[in-house]
Structures are given as structure tokens and as C-alpha cells.
């Protein structure tokens, strides 16, 4: 196991290198000049050229790449073109909201969706199953911003129970922090509850047809034990895969939800940076994503062999 983890961590290096080169090329080969964006509409071409020289964008591509990667390896990720902050500062600020939102959403989604999915599978074809699957179809089809604004309208404006928007750091008090995360997490959780409960139902139904389930029933185990210990555990691999993909998507930032609830997270940082051609920020954000994804997938792969010991790598 240790050798496996070590091998996977080493494999991160080429992934990061290729992603870095790919993103670097993609950014510089597509039209859109950050110097022109900074200079504004009325700038002369001399002014634009001066800004370009200041940002180091007038060097040949490979020189730019080596300068940037040399600094990055030394821990200096450069400074944003637009915010007068270093990229590291900017990202550290944005990580907390995104990570906390992802965590809350995940806890909510998994703790609701997995029991619902198992219940639906156990009552396959019955009205409980139909009701749960009906909700799930609804969860798939209603856009996130509709759910978001609807919840804001009901809980914040109509009933005045929760704040409308905004984010507070944990350091400013846990009560204030958690009360502002409720609506965004519920909004985001809707779609994950739909997806995870459907996947849970589909794979539990699949395992319920196996011979060992019949054996377990035949030897007189109670229905709940069969369902949870035998069926759910053997159905776990696709379920944790989907949960893992969900974590990756949530960490990558959820632009729409962050915008609806005015949360300063990584998702909006990424989109703003891409639209403004803020090269240093985009490069580091994407590198960070790839590193985190490799780690998440490593954890998921380890979890596979925990739930299904037959899986060997």
C-alpha cells in the first residue's frame, strides 16, 4: 500500500508539468492581450507595449515559461495582473469559502442521498421508490440558480429566517459562519442528492440480484443487515466514485452558486481570471486543481480496496 501511494505521488509530477505547459500555451496562443485590457480603451500602442514589457509578456514563449516555472518551483507564484496582490495571497483568501461550502454540501448530500437510494432500491417499484426517483428527476432538471433564488425568496425574504447572501469566515464566529452557509449548501446539495441517490439505487439493485444476497437471506439475516452489510457495501464502488467526482467539481468552484449567494470563492476567481486574461492567476489555480484532483482520486482509489478487497492495483 505504501509503495502504491508513493508511486501515485511521484506520478503527480508529470501531470502537473503537462498541465502547466498546456495551459501556458493555450493562454498565450489564444487572442486577447492582458496588456491591452489593463491599458484600457484610450491607450496608445506605446503604452500597451510598455505594460507588456513590464509584465514580461514581450519575451519569447519558452523564456516566459522558464522564468515562470523557475519562480514557481521556488515558491513564488507571481503577482496578479489585475488585483494588486500576489497570486498566493489571492488564492489563500478564496480557498476557505470554497472548501467550507464543498464540505457542507457534501455532508448534506451524502447523508441524505445514500439512505434515500438504499430505501428506493429496497422498495423498488413501490410508491416510496417512485417518489424518491421523481424528486431526483426534478433535482436534475431545475437549474441551480432557480433553486438558489427560490430558496432566498422563501427563507430569507418571505420568512426572514436566514440571511440573503454573503460569507463570514469561521474566525469571525461560528454561528454567523454556519447560518450563511445553509442556503448555498442546500442549493448545491439538491443536484448531488439527485445524482448520488440514483447511482446508489441503481448499483444496490444490481447487487441485490447476486447469489450471496440470496444466501444471506436464506440463512435468516434480518433485512436491514442484508441491505447495509451485504448489498450497500458491494455497491459502494460506483457510489464513492460519484461522490469523489462531486468533491472534485465542488472544489473546482461552483460559479453560479457563488454568484447567487455572493460568496468569494475559487470558482468566481477562475472565471474572472479567465475572462480578464489574468495569466498568473489562471496558471496557478489550474495547477492547484490538478494537484488536488490527483490527491482526491488517490484517496478514492484507496477507498475502493477498503470497500471491495478484491480490487488490487
Amino acid at each position, binding site marked *: 500500500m505504501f509503495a502504491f501511494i508513493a508511486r501515485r505521488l511521484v506520478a503527480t509530477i508529470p501531470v502537473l508539468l503537462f*498541465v502547466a505547459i*498546456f495551459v501556458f500555451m493555450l493562454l498565450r496562443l*489564444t487572442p486577447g492581450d492582458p496588456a491591452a485590457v489593463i491599458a484600457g480603451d484610450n491607450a496608445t500602442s506605446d503604452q500597451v507595449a510598455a505594460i507588456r514589457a513590464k509584465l514580461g509578456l514581450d519575451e519569447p514563449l519558452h523564456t516566459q515559461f522558464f522564468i515562470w516555472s523557475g519562480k514557481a518551483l521556488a515558491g513564488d507564484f507571481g503577482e496578479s495582473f489585475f488585483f494588486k496582490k500576489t497570486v498566493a495571497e489571492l488564492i489563500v483568501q478564496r480557498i476557505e469559502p470554497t472548501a467550507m461550502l464543498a464540505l457542507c454540501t457534501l455532508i448534506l448530500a451524502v447523508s441524505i442521498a445514500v439512505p434515500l437510494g438504499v430505501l428506493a432500491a429496497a422498495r423498488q417499484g413501490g410508491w416510496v421508490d417512485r417518489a424518491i426517483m421523481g424528486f431526483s428527476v426534478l433535482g436534475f432538471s431545475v437549474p441551480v440558480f432557480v433553486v438558489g433564488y427560490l430558496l432566498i425568496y422563501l427563507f430569507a425574504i418571505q420568512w426572514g429566517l436566514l440571511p440573503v447572501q454573503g460569507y463570514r469566515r469561521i474566525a469571525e464566529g461560528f454561528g454567523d459562519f454556519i447560518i450563511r452557509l445553509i442556503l448555498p449548501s442546500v442549493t448545491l446539495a439538491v443536484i448531488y442528492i439527485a*445524482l448520488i441517490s440514483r*447511482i446508489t439505487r441503481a*448499483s444496490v439493485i444490481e447487487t441485490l440480484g447476486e447469489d450471496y444476497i440470496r444466501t444471506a437471506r436464506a440463512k435468516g439475516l434480518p433485512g436491514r443487515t442484508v441491505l447495509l452489510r451485504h448489498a450497500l457495501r458491494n455497491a459502494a464502488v*460506483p457510489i464513492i466514485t460519484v461522490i469523489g467526482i462531486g468533491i*472534485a467539481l465542488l472544489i473546482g468552484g461552483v460559479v453560479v452558486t457563488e454568484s447567487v449567494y455572493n460568496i468569494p470563492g475559487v470558482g468566481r476567481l477562475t472565471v474572472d481570471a479567465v475572462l480578464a486574461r489574468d495569466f498568473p492567476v489562471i496558471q496557478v489555480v489550474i495547477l492547484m486543481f490538478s494537484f488536488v484532483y490527483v490527491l482526491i482520486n488517490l484517496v478514492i482509489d484507496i477507498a475502493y480496496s477498503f470497500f471491495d478487497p478484491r*480490487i488490487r492495483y
Partner: protein
Amino acid sequence: MTIALENEVDAAAARAAAVARPSVWKRLSQNMSVRIGGAMVLVMVLIGLAAPLLGTIDPARIDPTTRNRKPGVEVTVRNDDGTRTTRTVHMGTDSLGRDIYSRVLYGARVSLIVGISVASLSIVIGVFIGLVSGYIRWLDGIVMRIMDGLMAIPGILLAIGLVSLFRAGLGTVIFAIVVPEIPRVVRLVRSVVLSVREEPYVEAAISVGTPLPKILWRHILPNTIAPVIVQGTFICGAAILA
């Protein structure tokens, strides 16, 4: 000998399958949910196809004189040749004076094309890569690390890159949504393959010398179908909203 044995095993599997399922079409057509869902999809497809015949006008037509009208109001439009025509805007007009009713009907076309093609493309490509990567051990490490990298590139960046390389169009949109979806399908399929490849019947198939493509197609692929279909419907919905 092994070939004869293999044929025997396959024939037995085919017989079992034939007994278990009378007819896929018959079972589907008797299922109420399938009937209702199918009818709804059919209506959407018909609306998309018949959009020009349902009293619509050019959905992209901008008309500064009839902006922001309420649904059901009559508007008078002056044509290029000077004549005037009056029509009712069933769903009103937007801030550029475009007819929302026409935009909705023509939008059904685009949504269906994007949703269905994104879902089927990412499923086909993802299932293929996932099967191969999950089954062939030495490929797994390399392919999955490529997928990790692919997953990290935001769709919006990819879209901007594609539009500048080619040009904005339906194909570019579909491609830009398909690429980030592929790693997710691959991970799901691969996770199922990882457990299924250890099943006794796969070992049995290997021991009678079944060729690799046949093992993947006959013995492993069917196990991945259930989660993949769920993921596929999810992708279809997400692609339409994207």
C-alpha cells in the same frame, strides 16, 4: 477444444439471456414511466423539428420598436417593403425585441441537439477508455493521470481556446462540454471494471481463452450499464443547462 468450450459457454449465456428477457421492446412498452417519459421526449423532438411551422418568426430578429412587451400583447411590425403586419407575442418579447415564443421553440432544437450529442459522445468515449483502462493494469496509471489533468482544465478556458482556434458554433460548444465530462465517465466505468475483473466468470472467460475485446464487450460492459445510464442522463441535463 478451448474454442468449442468457449462457444458452448457463450451459447449457454445467450440461452439464459433469451429465457430471462422475453423482448426488450415489449417490457419497455409496458412500463408506465417509460411510456410517459418517452411521450414527453417525443413531444420535445416534434416541437424542435416543427419549430418553423408553429407560427414562429426568426428567433434572432431584433426589433427596437417592440422591446419588453408583456405576453399576449399584439404588436405591429413594419416590414422591409413598408407594409405593416400585426401579430400576437404569445410569450412577450425580450430587451432586444426578440420574440420569446420563437426563441423557446427554436431553443428546444439546440438544447436537444447539444444535450443528446454531449451525453452520447462522452458516454461512448468514456466507456471505451474506462473499460480499457480499468482492465489493462499497466495502462491504468497512465490513462488515469491524463484524465486527472484533463479534469483540471476549466470548461470556460477550453471554450475560449476552441473558439479562437476554430470558430463559435454548435460543434465547438459540444466539444467544449464533452471534454471535461469524459474523465468523469471514465472514472465511473473504471471503478466498476476494477471490481468486475476479479469476478469468477471473468476468470472463467480468460481461462477458456476468450479474446480480450470479447471479454470487455460480453462480460464486463453489461455490468457498467446501470451507473453509466444514470450518469448519462445527468450529463444530458447538465449540458442543456450549461
